[in-house]
């Protein structure tokens, strides 16, 4: 770690009705990776937006390279060498890699854009990063991981001195994360200051040097990563101790009936000959690396994607599921990994979302019974402890965890007995995560059967009664929780790869 390159001191920012940042401090040194952590809504993004000129601060000072600065827009920040690598926003799918990297500052020959030079310069950047991407490839043809590399290349091309990574690993595979870390270490060695925003505790331990924790818009503290434990950090984030203890014993009542049986299911390349059983009151974890075919299996089972062959039995009865409508009819509910795209309608209210899967129940002929709708929605808001000012609140205004609860309410309204949770806590902060876990356990105890697809090992070990492991579209193992360890799950999850 070198000298201080950037200091934010006493940063204050209010929006109408919200004190988003309350005198927050942050200090970044050259050659360090500095984690910025906090629950959703803690103010991490707001702080970074103030830094890069997207928001104007109310008070406080930013000192960069020894001088007090105030950037008025991202362009000014970029030019000074402070760059954000956004999660996904910054991609122009229809343009080429080089065009993306140099957007806004194209090389020109007269009025003509010099694409040849841009391609050459992009190539040089990639060579410097030791990665192989064709600058003339159309951006949307790249994998998410490669796109992220392009974003980083873009940041470096700005002669960046401070790079902010905003949840860079959210959509990456393990291998891609490894590559990302290699690049970040490279950048650190070149004396850049790096801000790393992430929810993933494991990554924080691996890649960062220091951690600054924020809570409810305030600065809580800064720790040296290697001298602190996971629990230290989590404590600072939530202000309470959270036990991430794994489950040790299968909690399913003995002799619980099989409610769902999947027999030799095939659907495309990603689902090959998958068989498993799900019992009443059980949480069945689906583990595996990204791209193992878990989500695809669930989508096929739910009728969202076509099935090539195989049988599905619900409560012992063979069923044909050709569409999500069929699946819902047999009491299967699916909570998508991508809530915003598939799970909820953000511009509708809590009540409207709650009844969406079962609107017939709430309709008198063509008219919707608003009163009944609100009553039922209210009931679930209470029983799931959804934090919302009211059932008429637009879902877009809720936090991730509470949005997830609305989706759960939607399927409970429909009386689904089989619930498929696909990455139930993705993008949800630690406190809300625990509530979702509690809720899932409670549902299982009430006799619902739950399938949980998760990429987080701690989540799998904490929640599952049994674990199915997939790799490359095939089921590679099945474990009772009592015999499951990180090591043997990882073993199965990589079985097909070598």
């Amino acid at each position, binding site marked *: 770690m070198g000298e201080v390159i950037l200091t934010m001191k006493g940063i204050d920012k209010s929006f109408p009705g919200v004190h988003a940042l309350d005198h927050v401090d942050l200090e970044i040194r050259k050659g360090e990776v500095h984690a910025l952590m906090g629950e959703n809504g803690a103010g991490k993004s707001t702080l970074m937006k103030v830094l890069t000129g997207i928001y104007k601060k109310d008070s406080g000072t930013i000192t960069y390279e020894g001088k007090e600065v105030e950037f008025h*827009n*991202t*362009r000014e920040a*970029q030019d000074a060498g402070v760059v954000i690598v*956004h999660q996904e*926003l*910054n*991609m*122009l*799918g*229809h*343009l080429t890699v080089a*065009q993306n990297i140099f*957007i*806004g*500052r*194209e090389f*020109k020959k007269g*009025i*003509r*854009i010099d*694409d040849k030079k841009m*391609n050459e310069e992009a*190539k040089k950047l990639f060579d410097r990063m030791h990665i*192989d991407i*064709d*600058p*003339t*490839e159309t951006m*949307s*043809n790249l994998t998410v991981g490669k796109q992220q590399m392009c974003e980083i290349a873009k940041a470096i091309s700005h002669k960046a001195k401070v790079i902010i990574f905003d949840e860079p690993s959210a959509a990456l595979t393990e291998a891609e994360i490894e590559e990302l870390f290699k690049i970040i270490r490279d950048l650190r060695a070149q004396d850049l200051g790096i801000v790393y925003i992430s929810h993933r505790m494991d990554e924080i331990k691996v890649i960062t040097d220091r951690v600054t924790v924020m809570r409810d818009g305030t600065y809580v503290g800064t720790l040296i990563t290697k001298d602190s434990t996971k629990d230290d950090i989590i404590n600072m984030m939530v202000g309470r101790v959270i036990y991430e203890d794994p489950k040790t014993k299968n909690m399913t009542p003995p002799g619980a009936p099989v409610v769902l049986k999947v027999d030799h299911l095939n659907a495309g390349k990603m689902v090959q000959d998958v068989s498993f059983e799900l019992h009443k009151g059980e949480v069945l974890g689906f583990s595996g690396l990204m791209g193992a075919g878990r989500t695809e299996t669930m989508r096929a089972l739910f009728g969202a994607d076509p099935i090539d062959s195989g049988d599905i039995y619900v409560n012992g009865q063979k069923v044909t599921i050709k569409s999500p409508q069929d699946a819902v009819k047999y009491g299967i509910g699916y909570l998508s990994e991508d809530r915003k795209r598939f799970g909820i309608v953000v511009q509708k209210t809590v009540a409207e979302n709650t009844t969406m899967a079962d609107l017939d129940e709430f309709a008198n002929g063509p008219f919707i019974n608003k009163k009944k709708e609100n009553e039922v929605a209210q009931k679930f808001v209470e029983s799931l402890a959804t934090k919302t000012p009211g059932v008429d609140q637009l879902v877009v205004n809720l936090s991730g965890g509470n949005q997830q609860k609305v989706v759960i309410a939607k399927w409970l309204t429909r009386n689904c007995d089989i619930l498929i949770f696909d990455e139930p806590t993705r993008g949800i902060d630690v406190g809300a995560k625990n509530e979702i876990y509690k809720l899932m356990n409670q549902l299982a105890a009430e006799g619902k059967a739950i399938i949980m697809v998760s990429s987080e090992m701690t989540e799998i070990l904490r929640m599952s009664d049994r674990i199915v492991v997939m790799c490359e579209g095939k089921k590679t193992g099945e474990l009772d929780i009592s015999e499951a360890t990180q090591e043997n799950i990882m073993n199965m999850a990589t079985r097909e790869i070598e």
Partner: protein
Amino acid sequence: MANKVSKTAGTNKSFIDRMGGQQFIVLILVIVMFIFFSAMSPGFRKYTTVVSILDYSYYIALMAIGVTFPLLTAGVDLSIGTGLVCYSLIGGLLVRQYGMPVAVGMLVTVLIGLIFGIINGCLVALMDLPPFLATLCTCMITRGFGAMVVGGYGIPWPAAAQEGGWFRSIFKINVGGQNIPIGFIWIILLVIVMSFVLNHTKMGRYTRAIGSNKEATRLSGVNVKFYHIMAYVICGLFAGLAAIAYSAIFATVQPGSGAGFELDAIGGAIVGGVSMSGAVGSIWGTLIGVFVICLLKTGLPFIGLTANWQQIITGLVLIAAVLFDILKRKKEAGK
């Protein structure tokens, strides 16, 4: 290394894709249609028919080149049809009523087009009105405004033999009793220029970028508002040019007309491979697409199909074009 990669990417593409994808298919379609109509009707395979198809194509092509820009930003401009008539009426009125030189009338025509382009651009880019709505409103406004200014009477721009009629020879000259459709040369030139603008200038690059991901473009430090407005300004400018072409080809311009012209232009662009969801498309594609529309309009009557059939078939062709686009994107998403 880069060359090697792109080469392998090239070989993965189908023959059609390497030839330019949808544009190639549409070009074949134009040729097939031309042969078909020629074979079916002796009246069609005449030089005069070719001239009249071209006559018909100028104003649609000009509108279509212009509207390609808003389309590429994932917007649309519905005001170009009624706008065209409005600009032409005002320009023509200056010439007819106030005795101004034709050149001045033309200049004013184009200028008003430009001004409405700026208005559309500001409504969409500055005030965040949905493009469909904003330009639907200016469509109505231009329609009413044009009719109001001329007081409800049609305006005949000077005929070829009259004083000031020289402007008609911009598009068609008469050599030894034969009409030579030189307007086509101007269209080709403009297509070349606008292709350059679209593919090799910031203006074009950012037009596509806005259509691909406006927020990302903004965060890259691009003056998104300016370039977003400019897309509509270009569109308005070309609507103005289309107004001149229209005035030069047709004897009289009728107030209240023009509604539906924009659909021919937008339809042409879409048949030619411009995606309504933005970013995808080319000026050459648009031009070829316009000829599909024009051939349908002029060709179908020759084989005895009425204007109603023409509408139905044009609609079906549009569905086919859009389906093609959707299927292609699904295929790409699936790989």
